[in-house]
C-alpha cells in the first residue's frame, strides 16, 4: 500500500544556506506523525518544501503522485492543507470570509457545508463569525487557521507549531480539539512542534530533526523512553 505522503532524500536551501540535508519519512493515510526538533532544525522548512514554497531536490509523493516542483496552489488542490507558522490569518477580513476562503477550492454551493462541523469543534468561531479576524486572540486565530485548513477537506493536514505563542491553558484546549479532529476526520496529520511532550502524546510516530538531518525515528512511545531525547527535549 502506498503511503499518503512519502518524502525521500529531501534537500532544501534558501539561496546559499542549506537547511535540509537529505531527510526521508512518510505519513500513512489517517496516520499521525510528529516532527520534533529545536529552533532552526528545519521543521518549518520541511513543511514549506511539501507545499512547494521552497526550492528542493529529492522526491515528495502524495498517494504515489509526485508533488515536488509543483506550484503551491496545485499541491493544495491535491489535498494538502497547511496551518502555517504564525497562523496566516487574513487580518483585514472577517472570520466568515476567512472560513469561506478555506473552502475556496470546493464547489461554490458546498462552500459553507462544513461550517456547522467547524462550529462544533470551535464554538468560539461561531461567536466571532462576523468579526474582523485581526481582532481575535492568538488562540482564536489558531482555531481559525485549523478550521480554514480543514474546510479544504484535505487528505493531509500540516500543522506548524499550533502551540506557538499561546498560554499553556490555551495550548491544552487546542490539543484537546486536535485530538477530536484526529479521531473524527479521515485525514493524515504531520505535526511540527518544539513542545516535544505535547507532540509525542498526540502522535503515533515521531521523527527527530537536528540541523537538517533526521537523527531518530520510531513510535512516540519508544521515543519518549529514549534517554537522550528525554534530556534534550523533555527536560527530565
Amino acid at each position, binding site marked *: 500500500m502506498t503511503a499518503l505522503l512519502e518524502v525521500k532524500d529531501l534537500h532544501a536551501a534558501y539561496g546559499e544556506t542549506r537547511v535540509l540535508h537529505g531527510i526521508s519519512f512518510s505519513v500513512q493515510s489517517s496516520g499521525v506523525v510528529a516532527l520534533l526538533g529545536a529552533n532552526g532544525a528545519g521543521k518549518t522548512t520541511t513543511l514549506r518544501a511539501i507545499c512547494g514554497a521552497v526550492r528542493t531536490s529529492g522526491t515528495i509523493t502524495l498517494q504515489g503522485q509526485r508533488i515536488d516542483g509543483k506550484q503551491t496552489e496545485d499541491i493544495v488542490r491535491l489535498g494538502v492543507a497547511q496551518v502555517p507558522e504564525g497562523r496566516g490569518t487574513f*487580518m483585514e477580513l472577517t472570520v466568515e470570509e476567512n472560513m*469561506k*476562503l478555506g473552502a475556496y477550492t470546493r464547489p461554490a454551493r458546498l462552500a459553507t457545508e462544513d461550517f456547522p462541523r467547524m462550529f462544533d469543534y470551535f464554538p468560539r468561531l461561531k461567536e466571532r463569525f462576523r468579526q*474582523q479576524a485581526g481582532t481575535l486572540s492568538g488562540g482564536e486565530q489558531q482555531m481559525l487557521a485549523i478550521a480554514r485548513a480543514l474546510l479544504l477537506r484535505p487528505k493531509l493536514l500540516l500543522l506548524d507549531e499550533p502551540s506557538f505563542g499561546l498560554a499553556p491553558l490555551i495550548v491544552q484546549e487546542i490539543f484537546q480539539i486536535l485530538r477530536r479532529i484526529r479521531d473524527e476526520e479521515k485525514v493524515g496529520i504531520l505535526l511540527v512542534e518544539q513542545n516535544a511532550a505535547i507532540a509525542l502524546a498526540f502522535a503515533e510516530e515521531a521523527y527527530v530533526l537536528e540541523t537538517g538531518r533526521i537523527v531518530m525515528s520510531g513510535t512516540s512511545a519508544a521515543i519518549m523512553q529514549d534517554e537522550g531525547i528525554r534530556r534534550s527535549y523533555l527536560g527530565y
Partner: protein
Amino acid sequence: MLSGVLHQIMSGIATGGIYASVALALVMIYQATHHVNFAQGEMATFSTYITLTLINVGLPYWVAFVLAVAVSFVIGMGIERILMRPLHTAPVLSSVGVFVGLLLIVNSLSGWFFDYTIKQFPTPFPDRPMLGGYLSGHELGSTAVTLIVLLSVYGFFRYTRLGLAMRAAAFNPVSSRLVGVRVDWMLALGWGLAAAIGAVAGCMVAPIVFLDPNMMSGILLYAFAGALLGGIDNPLGAVLGGFMVGVIENLGGAYLVGTELKLSLALVIIVAVLTIRPTGLMGRKVFSRV
C-alpha cells in the same frame, strides 16, 4: 448666488465621479502591488481612443463602449502578466521605473496611432439641461454610469467568491496560496478590472475635456488627490475622496483661485493630506493582536 453654489456642487459631483473611478482603479492596483500606477491615466486615454476608433468605423456608441472596455480589460491583464510579473520581488525603484516607462510608452503609442490633434468625442446622452438646469444631459448620464460602475465593483468584491479571493490575494498572498487561490491570476484580474474602470472614466470625461494623448494627466492628479484624501488603501474612502475633490475643485475654481489655478488645488490637497493625516480620512486601521 445660492443657485450658483448649488450648480458648482452638482457639476463637482459629476466630475468627482470620474475622479472617483480613476481613484478606485489606482487603489485596486495599490492594494495588490503597494505602488501607484502612474500609467493609469494614459491607459484610460488609450482606451478612449479605442472607443473613438470603433465609433468611427460605424459601430453604435454603446457597442463600441462595451468592446473598448473589454479590450482594455485584456490589455490590463496583459500588462500585468508581461511587464509586472517579473517585478513581484523587485525593489521599489524598479517598479516606479516601469510605471513611468509605461506612462511614456502608452502616451506615445496614443500619439503615434491616433495623432496628437485634439479630437471631439461624442456623448451618448441628450444635449440639454436636466434637473432644473443644474446639470447637462452628459453630466447626469456620466454620473449615472459612474455610479453603476462603482456599485457593481463594490458588489463584485463584497459578494462574490472571486472578489473575495482577489481581496485575499492582495492582503495576504502567502495564505491565499495555501487555500488554493491562484494569486498570480488574481493580480492580473485586478489589473484588467482597473484598466476597464479607467476606460469607462476616459469615455465619460472625453466629451467634456476633448480627447488628446494627455487628456488624463490632470485627471490622474485629481484622482490621486482623491485617493489620498480618502485613504490610498481603502477603496470606499478613495471613491468618496474622488467625489470630494471634484466638489472642492469646482467650488475652489469658481470662488477661490479661478479656473487657471484649479489643478494646484489637487497639489494642495495631496501635500495637506500627506503632512496632516497620511492615512487619509478613511485609511485602513487594522487591529491586530499577537
